[in-house]
């Protein structure tokens, strides 16, 4: 299997403070990686740096994605290249309907790929199909993006967008946070249905809960800006039993 993503010695800062202190990580096509770790270890920073959030500065290292230097691409172009982040805190956009938002996103991607804009009928059919995947109420589609949505609706909307954009590498940043057990199952089932042999995921989570539904191939522990342990799925159970303290003590 070829490498989809290669992170080499990645250092990143925010407001001059170093958060990532030399991350090395390789994701092959088709793999599901879980990144776990205590609060403040740098999990969300890693996902933000991957998608090009302007608040973070990469000071050292490189990221190769699909053989390209990811750090040279604008955030929108990273998206067009198949990178998707399910936000930990999805943003409310008053006045922009989900339909218009998705149409702008889909057509920007098609333009990037040299394709014609999608026609209205085709687009609405696609919206309907993908909505069904995560049981997203049709009424929500006409509402402003995330405005007044419940926590569960926001996360389902993230997975709905993921379904629409069909990413190659999806990053799920604490997608389980704020979800009750039913919502969690719907979201996880949505992610599993979208899984293909050539697509990969980075599942960032604090707890093992989500990983009961989305089975990782490889589990990493991020602590103090570095990956301190990498193992198979059995590591999840070990963390559940022992907590994070032994990791902190070892490092």
């Amino acid at each position, binding site marked *: 299997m070829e490498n989809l993503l290669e992170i080499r010695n990645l250092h990143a800062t925010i407001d001059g403070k170093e958060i990532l202190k030399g991350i090395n990580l390789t994701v092959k096509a088709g793999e599901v990686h879980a990144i776990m770790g205590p609060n403040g270890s740098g999990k969300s920073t890693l996902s933000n740096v991957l*998608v*090009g*959030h*302007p608040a973070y500065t990469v000071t050292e290292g490189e990221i190769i994605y699909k053989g390209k230097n990811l750090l040279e691409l*604008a*955030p*929108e172009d*990273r*998206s*067009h290249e198949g990178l*998707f*982040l399910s*936000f930990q805190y*999805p*943003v*409310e*956009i*008053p*006045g*922009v309907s989900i339909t*218009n*938002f998705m149409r*702008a*996103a*889909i057509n*920007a*991607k098609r333009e*990037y790929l040299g394709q014609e804009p999608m026609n209205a009928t085709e687009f609405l059919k696609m919206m309907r199909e993908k909505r069904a995947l995560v049981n997203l109420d049709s009424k929500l589609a006409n509402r*402003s993006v995330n405005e007044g949505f419940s926590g569960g609706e926001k996360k389902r909307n993230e997975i709905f*967008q993921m379904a629409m*954009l069909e990413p190659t590498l999806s990053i799920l940043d604490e997608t389980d946070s704020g979800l009750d057990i039913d919502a969690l199952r719907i979201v996880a089932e949505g992610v599993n249905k979208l899984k293909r042999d050539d697509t990969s995921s980075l599942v960032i989570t604090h707890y093992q809960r989500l990983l009961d539904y989305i089975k990782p191939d490889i589990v990493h522990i991020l602590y103090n800006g570095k990956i301190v342990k990498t193992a198979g799925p059995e590591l999840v159970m070990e963390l559940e039993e022992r907590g994070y303290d032994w990791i902190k003590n070892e490092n």
Partner: protein
Amino acid sequence: MDCVQEYIELFENNRTLIDGPCCKKLNEEREKAFVRFKTEGFPGLKDENWRHTNVAKKFATNFGMDLGRKSATSNIKGSFTCDVPNLKTYKGYVLNDNFVADENNRLLPEGVIIGSINEIAALHPELIGKHYNSLAEKGDSTVQFNTSFAQECMVLYVPKNVVIEETVQIIALLQTNVEILTNRRLLVIMEENSHASLLLCDHSATERESLSTSVTEIFIGRGASLNLYELEETTDSNTRLGNLFVRQEHDSRFNHCNITLTNGFTRNYVEVVLDGEGAETNINGLAIGDKMQHIDNRTLVDHRKGHCTSNELYKYILDENSTGVFSGKMLIRTVAQQTVSQQTNRNLCLTSCAHMYAQPQLEIYADDVKCSHGSTVGQLDENALFYMQQRGIPAEEARHLLMYAFAGEVIDNIKLEALRERLHILVEKRFRGELNHCKGCNLCK
């Protein structure tokens, strides 16, 4: 010699010429107004109401005025239709400050009068005598200036129980090869239980320095309703001083939306007096500025009777070096119990050079009311921009979507669907920089 003195001399030396084509009422009111203008001059920056808008400086240009009524003979109808797609309108034209009737108009309902005050005054002296300048009389010195020099006033009269289904569209156009100052007037009288929609388009087809003062007086009778839409599409070289005075009786309704799409230097004053129980007023404004544009909106909603409702929403989007001023006052008098009043002002400053001065004011003397107001100034939400970029929407497009969404709230309050659709398109084009100049008429493209 300062410019006030020049205008005084212009007036005094040309009195016969000014009075010539006008009805008696216009000349009577002119007499009184001029006395006030002569004493007060133009407001300066020390005047609290004009603190951020230096209007005296604008009058200092050596403008020409068409006191001999030369442009009255011009014909603009053929070249300037100003059609809104899917919206049938009854049209009237104002070229510079002359009223030009459109012979192609469809028939209006029986009893409706539209035309020049100088003709209508002869047929209905009482109607004109009772209403003309009765609201604007107490206006500030710029209003007195207008009353002093105005030689024409367009009148719309809608009799009791009459509903005008079609929108009445009044298209004002500046067309000139010289620096020009125009004084426009409009008088609207809505009798009991009548209804009309009025669209006022303010255009400029000149790159010359121009200044237009306008005074609009509107009387809305018991149970009557009026929708008023004002759209300014002028140029960098234009100064607009708009004054709108509205008086509402029992259970009447007034919906107003004032959009500054392109302009130079604009001041709009809106005063609504709720003078009968159960009256409702909704006043909205949208101002889009860039370059060196200046947009000042000042409003007063005067609750003089109980059980009235007022809603106000003004939004500004200021780019580059533009300046916005909003000053909105809600006055709830002692007798105005059970008033429901709400005022919202939201502003976006897209650059660090754009300035917004916001001054929301509530003055409440009654003790049983429900009132609220809020004002914010901010930038585009960086988190929302990034969220959109992550989904593949390019940064520039994301900015447009957010600006468009921000403006949309005001446009969505427009009740005429065809106009609403049209304005959505115009505003979007404006943000994309496709409306930098008003070349003729953007509404018809």
